[in-house]
């Protein structure tokens, strides 16, 4: 794993702090394809941590292991000190999860969608109504809560999913490509709600995204993942500063411009931004289909 010197130093200094998430030597293979190949991650309590990478980089597989959807075949994964391999239920109680697909049930109203998750997370009956109202208000869906989710726009569905994930008051919110397929206004809107909730509750957020501008603007720290490995980690600024002028040279010859996170991404992921190279290497047909379906559902 390649880590910038400053980030490594900061990590060493912060080892005493409680960690929202710790992964060490995490590996996961689908047959002969190694989707996650020795990932080490440290996510600090209260931060927004971005996991970046092209399609097929292994981000979603790593997320599925962290969320206990997949077993931990090799390595160690802990959420707030709970082992994802041995204490699955304890880990799940701490998580709020928004998957890549638009996953609200269109046959239910917004309120019913949220109420289902309040029930399965054992939110006490006397608190349930108030909690549901509060999260619906937090994501700006109070007025449309009694409409069927099938009538919602893509941005509204994403906010509804956020409300579903928040109703259990999770300590670690995991968002897998939360703004995929959304227009810029809806993206800003979704991030605005994530930021508000995070500021109000202090919860930790782990997010995967393709959008470098979002990572730059909203993430405290990021890790760049490619070919199943973390290629670099640190704050966006650290990663930008770590790039030499030659490394940040762009195809158009605009090397005089200060490097952006996209330059960092391109440096580590090669031409993988468009997803072609990496999909061929490690991408899964279902991932691509799922991404396209989500993009098509949100229009």
């Amino acid at each position, binding site marked *: 794993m390649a880590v910038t010197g400053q980030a490594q130093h900061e990590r060493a200094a912060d080892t005493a702090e409680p960690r929202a998430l710790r992964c060490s030597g995490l590996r996961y293979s689908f047959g002969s394809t190694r989707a996650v190949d020795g990932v080490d991650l440290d996510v600090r309590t209260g931060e927004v941590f971005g996991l970046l990478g092209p399609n097929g980089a292994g981000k979603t597989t790593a997320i599925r292991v962290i969320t206990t*959807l997949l077993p931990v075949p090799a390595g160690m994964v802990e959420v707030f000190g709970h082992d994802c391999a041995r204490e699955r239920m304890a880990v799940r109680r701490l998580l709020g999860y928004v998957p890549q697909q638009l996953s609200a049930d269109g046959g239910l109203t917004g309120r019913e969608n949220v109420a289902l998750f309040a029930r399965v997370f054992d939110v006490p009956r006397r608190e349930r109504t108030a909690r549901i109202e509060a999260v619906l208000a937090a994501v700006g869906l109070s007025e449309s809560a009694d409409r069927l989710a099938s009538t919602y726009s893509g941005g509204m569905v994403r906010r509804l999913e956020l409300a579903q994930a928040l109703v259990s008051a999770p300590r670690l919110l995991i968002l897998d490509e939360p703004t995929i397929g959304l227009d810029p206004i809806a993206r800003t809107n979704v991030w605005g709600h994530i930021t508000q909730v995070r500021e109000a509750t202090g919860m930790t957020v782990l997010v995967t995204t393709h959008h470098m501008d979002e990572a730059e603007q909203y993430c405290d720290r990021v890790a760049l993942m490619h070919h199943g490995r973390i290629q670099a980690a640190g704050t966006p600024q650290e990663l930008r500063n770590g790039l030499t002028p030659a490394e940040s040279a762009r195809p158009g010859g605009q090397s005089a411009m200060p490097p952006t996170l996209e330059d960092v991404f391109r440096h580590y992921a090669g031409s993988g931004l468009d997803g072609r190279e990496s999909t061929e290497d490690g991408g899964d047909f279902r991932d691509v289909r799922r991404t396209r379906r989500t993009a098509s559902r949100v229009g």
Partner: protein
Amino acid sequence: MVPARMLAMCLVELQKLRHDRTELYTRAVQPALWLLIFGETFTRIRAIPTGDVPYLDFLAPGIIAQSAMFIAIFYGIMIIWERDSGVLTKLLVTPTPRSALVIGKAVAAGVKAVIQAVVVILIAAALGVSLTWNPLKLTGVALVVVLGSAFFACLSMSIAGIVLTRDRLMGIGQAITMPLFFGSNALYPVAVMPGWLQAVSRANPLSYEVDALRGLLLGTPAHLGLDLAVLVFADVLGIVAASALMGRLAR
């Protein structure tokens, strides 16, 4: 906590049904046709010996069991749809044991099947079938329908966990529903079946469901204790299998 989660799953089914009753109406068509066309015709030609019981009366409990099975057998497709749309993924990340999810879905299939059974009973009553209106026996009917549907929903979810795609499951669903139906005592008494089909019928939970429903609704001789025991045993097996295979749907 597990019963609360089961209730949550059932509630979701009822809420969906409240928002869109189309399924309720369209699903009533097929049993109505079986009773009206098949039942009335075979009652007239007296081709199937059913003793003192008119064939239409004999057929009605079989059609209740058949329509309940048809509802339940497509729960596997529903769970694959939920997997593809991310709904199942999110539920599997909640502190809900997989067995509770399976039981919740199975009971939800039962609730839907009970609503369907009410519709079939009303159609049968309108056609002149002499059914019991004893509330205790009708409660027993609901219980038997729930137990039977739960098994077929678990069977379908287990197959979903093996085949993993809707296309394959639709093919398998269609391939098994008719043999299950014709290989049971729903349409004709076991006594008129050839020996090999009698053996199939004895291994088919649908036969025990139909036997219990006939006993409760028509008052014909039935083996209620055995029927309930077989259905409960089949449910336990189905829940264990579907829960074990649920993890494959998360991958």
